[in-house]
């Protein structure tokens, strides 16, 4: 059982940071709704508010790690130029996708959209975390602030969802490969 170092980084970027960020979303949205609705409906405790603040900070950190590892570690391998005359394009995912009319859309639409829309997630969730930390349950008294926080939180989810889905599909068509081979186990026949 082995994995390439490039493939491992793609997993850390997508499944690790991106996947954890998306998994965290349902909890964050639920708690944001509960904390920002009128107090008589859900009297939040200081401990829960502190927990949500830490939770939102961690989500913002995950979002930034996802886009930064994507843009500066994985994307350069994706867009690497193949030397002239290269026939086997499996180490050059962008060129591999562009080489066929069946797969070119995964680059021209998929990656072109993903590489930009993904950045809306960390910008939005950072703002959401900041506003919640600043206002806490006082957000209940700021109807317009509450609306904006929830709206941007949904966009942060949508943007990450689009990027995550496209990333997964692109990786199915043309996975990032290469680099050092990492041996995960030397399992023999059972």
């Amino acid at each position, binding site marked *: 059982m082995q994995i390439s170092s490039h493939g491992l980084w793609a997993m850390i970027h997508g499944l690790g940071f991106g996947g954890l960020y998306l998994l965290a979303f349902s909890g964050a949205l639920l708690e944001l709704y509960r904390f920002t609705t009128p107090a008589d409906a859900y009297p939040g405790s200081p401990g829960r508010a502190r927990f949500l603040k830490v939770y939102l900070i961690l989500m913002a950190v995950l979002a930034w790690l996802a886009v930064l590892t994507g843009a500066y570690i994985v994307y350069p391998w994706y867009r690497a130029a193949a030397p002239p005359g290269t026939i086997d394009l499996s180490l050059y995912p962008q060129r591999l996708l562009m080489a066929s009319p069946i797969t070119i859309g995964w680059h021209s639409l998929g990656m*072109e959209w993903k590489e930009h829309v993904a950045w809306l997630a960390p910008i939005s969730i950072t703002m959401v975390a900041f506003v919640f930390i*600043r206002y806490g349950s006082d957000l209940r008294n700021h109807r317009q602030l509450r609306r904006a926080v929830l709206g*941007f939180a949904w966009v942060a989810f949508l943007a990450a969802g689009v990027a995550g889905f496209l990333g997964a599909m692109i990786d199915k068509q043309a996975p990032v490969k290469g680099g050092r081979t990492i041996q995960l186990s030397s399992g023999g026949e059972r």
Partner: protein
Amino acid sequence: MNTNGGAASTGTPAIPNGSGAAAILAAGMGAFALAVLAVVGDKCAQLKPILSFYRPTGPLSGVTTVAIVLWLVTWAFLELRWRSNTVAMARVNAIAFVLLVLSLLLTFPPIADLL
């Protein structure tokens, strides 16, 4: 930062909305800056090398770095101006959401290709 995490709601805001408004409007502007720069970086061949701050990543590195700097500078500026004030939040929200929706649309390649 306040410490009113779980305080009961009184119906009267304890903190002016200026700081939140600054963060919200700056986020909208940052997202929009990113989308506009992405379109410009894609359409303008002369700008591509200028925006390639980190060659292996290409113009994406410049597009995102410039957008993030613009977002943070705008945020800091608005925060300094508004943090103690109560601002017209409905208008701030409207502008921020229009910018956010425009940025979502502009990052979608078929729409960006129409420009």
